[in-house]
Structures are given as structure tokens and as C-alpha cells.
């Protein structure tokens, strides 16, 4: 099982022309509404499954669909080095 994703210390939340963005050393990564919801739950303790379940419950959305989107988004965050592999 993958470790719960943890927001890296060197990533700031900001706002760009198209909405919320993550900034890491001058590089911007645009977030949509779902991305923002996932980001705020990446506390290093909550599993990807629990993040997806919480969002699906909050927005009364299709749980399976949200789970898949969450897993895909977290994978992108990992690829881009925006979430840390281990707790601080």
C-alpha cells in the first residue's frame, strides 16, 4: 500500500490567472476544485482511499469515480515532487 501523501514544505498555495496553483521554486502547478480538495487533505496521515472517500461524501459524488480521480491526481503530485515520501 502506498504511503499517505504529505504536502512538501517547499510548496506554497497561491492563486494564478486560472485559479489556485501550487508554487514550487517558481514553477506553478494549476489546481482545479478537486485538486484543491485533495491537496488540503494530503497531511501524511490520511490514505488516498480515505481522501477520496471524504471528498465523495462531502460532495455527494460517485465514490468510485472520485477514488479513481484522487489516485490519479496524487500520482501526478508524486511524479512532480509536490508531495513528500516520508513524514517530517
Amino acid at each position, binding site marked *: 500500500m502506498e504511503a499517505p501523501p504529505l504536502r512538501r514544505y*517547499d510548496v*506554497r*498555495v*497561491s492563486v494564478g490567472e486560472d*485559479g*489556485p496553483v501550487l508554487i514550487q521554486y517558481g514553477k506553478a502547478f494549476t489546481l482545479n476544485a478537486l485538486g*484543491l*480538495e485533495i491537496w*488540503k487533505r494530503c*497531511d501524511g496521515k490520511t490514505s488516498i482511499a480515505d481522501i477520496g472517500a471524504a471528498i465523495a461524501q462531502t460532495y455527494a459524488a460517485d465514490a468510485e469515480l472520485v477514488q479513481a480521480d484522487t489516485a490519479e491526481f496524487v500520482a501526478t503530485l508524486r511524479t512532480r515532487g509536490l508531495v513528500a515520501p516520508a513524514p517530517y
Partner: protein
Amino acid sequence: MHSEIFPVSMLTDIGSRIVTGTHTDAAIAYISGSLVEGYGNETSDLDIYVIYENPTPEQSQSGRSDLYAIETDFVGELRTDTEIWSLKWLTGLADRISGWQPMDWAGAQSFENRDLDLAHRLRIGLPILGGDRFQALRERFDWQRLAGIIMLKRFLAYTGAAEDAIGSVDAGRPLAAMLHSRDALGYAVDALLAAHGNTNPKPKWRESKLADLADDTLTRLYTEAELDCSSEPDDLTAGARRRLSVASGIAAEALAVALEA
């Protein structure tokens, strides 16, 4: 919410005595500040606001066009600060706030903290003179927009402090990292509080504002993130990293709440 230290009837009585003795021509007067809001303690003062339709030049002692004078007095051990303002300035401030467009970052930055505090103090004020006009003036303010302006200002403060903290961590400056990361965390919390509608712009009441929000999870998260294990450089740096990570999550929450509103 009012002070448990000084009964509200006592505060309004003190305010009324000061105003009726020296400001008989005022259009509006009200008491406000931390004691009225319920945040104050025994060392807090009572703030009295006196609003004149047309302040005379004699009342213009502060050398400013908007704030006419500040008078300090003591009633027993309670200090009172009386500020005299023109009605025109306050109605102008109300119109500026109403004219601000949600999520206008540059517009939010154009408001001074002092003016935001003045508006908030009107919101929580209790009238002691000119009750009807006080009510009309208060209804002229858009409190949701005031909260939105404060949210954006604190959010921008978060991004600036976080940038400084990240730079300090990477430069191997643990003490600076600790200080800047604490600022970033505090501003992120303030942004979230404002996103939920709190219009008190002063960080010094953060603990009281968190208590008002009654979000135990947020309060615990904030408290734990503020702590450091020790003053050892490695612990300070680890604490700063942890704090920045938490601040980023809280800032994201603030943004999500603001965008939804």
C-alpha cells in the same frame, strides 16, 4: 458576545458619561473593542467612537483629514480611548468596501489594516448616542466583502511568509525558518478565519477567534504545528518543514471556502 470581566451595562454607562459630558453635538457614538467583543481582559481598554457630521477645525487635532482626535481617560483602573471620526469618512469607507469585487487581490491590498479594523469595530459596536443613525451606518457596510478583503490580505501575507520560510530552510537558517514558518502558519489560519466570515483583522486575538469558530480539529492542528521539539537546529528545521506543510493545507482550505462563497 460581551466581556465577562466588565458587564456590558457598566461599559455603556462609562461610554455614555464620557460622551455626554464632552461630545453633545456628535451624530453617533458607540463603544467597541476587545472588551465589547468578549476577547479582552483586565488590562484591556474601552474604545469609544464619536462620529461627527461636520467636525470643527478645533476637533481636528490629529493632523489627519479622517481621524480627528484621540482622547485618553481613566475611569477607575479602566482606560478609555475615544476616537473622533467624520461621518463622511465612515460612509466613504463603507462604499469602498461595497465597491470591492470578490477575489480582487490588488483591490484588497489597497485597504489599510487600520480601516479594516475601524469597520470591524463598527460591526461589533454598541450604540450610546444616535442609535438609529448608528444602525443605518452599520447597514451600509457589506460584512461579507469586508471578510473577503481580510481573507485575501492574510492569504497574500501567508504566501510571502511561506516563501521566506522555505528560503530559510533551504539556506540552513533554522531560527529564521522557525520564525517565518510561524508567521506563514498564523497568516494561513487568519485567512481561514476570515474566509469563514470573521472580520476582526488583528492576529493577537487568533486564539479567541479559533474558539469562536469551534473547530477543535483546526485548533489542535494549529497548536501542534506551532510546537518545536527543542531548540536544536535540526529540530527547528524539522518543525519549520512540518509547519509549512500544515500551513499549506490550511491556506488551501481558506481558498476553497473563499472560492465557494
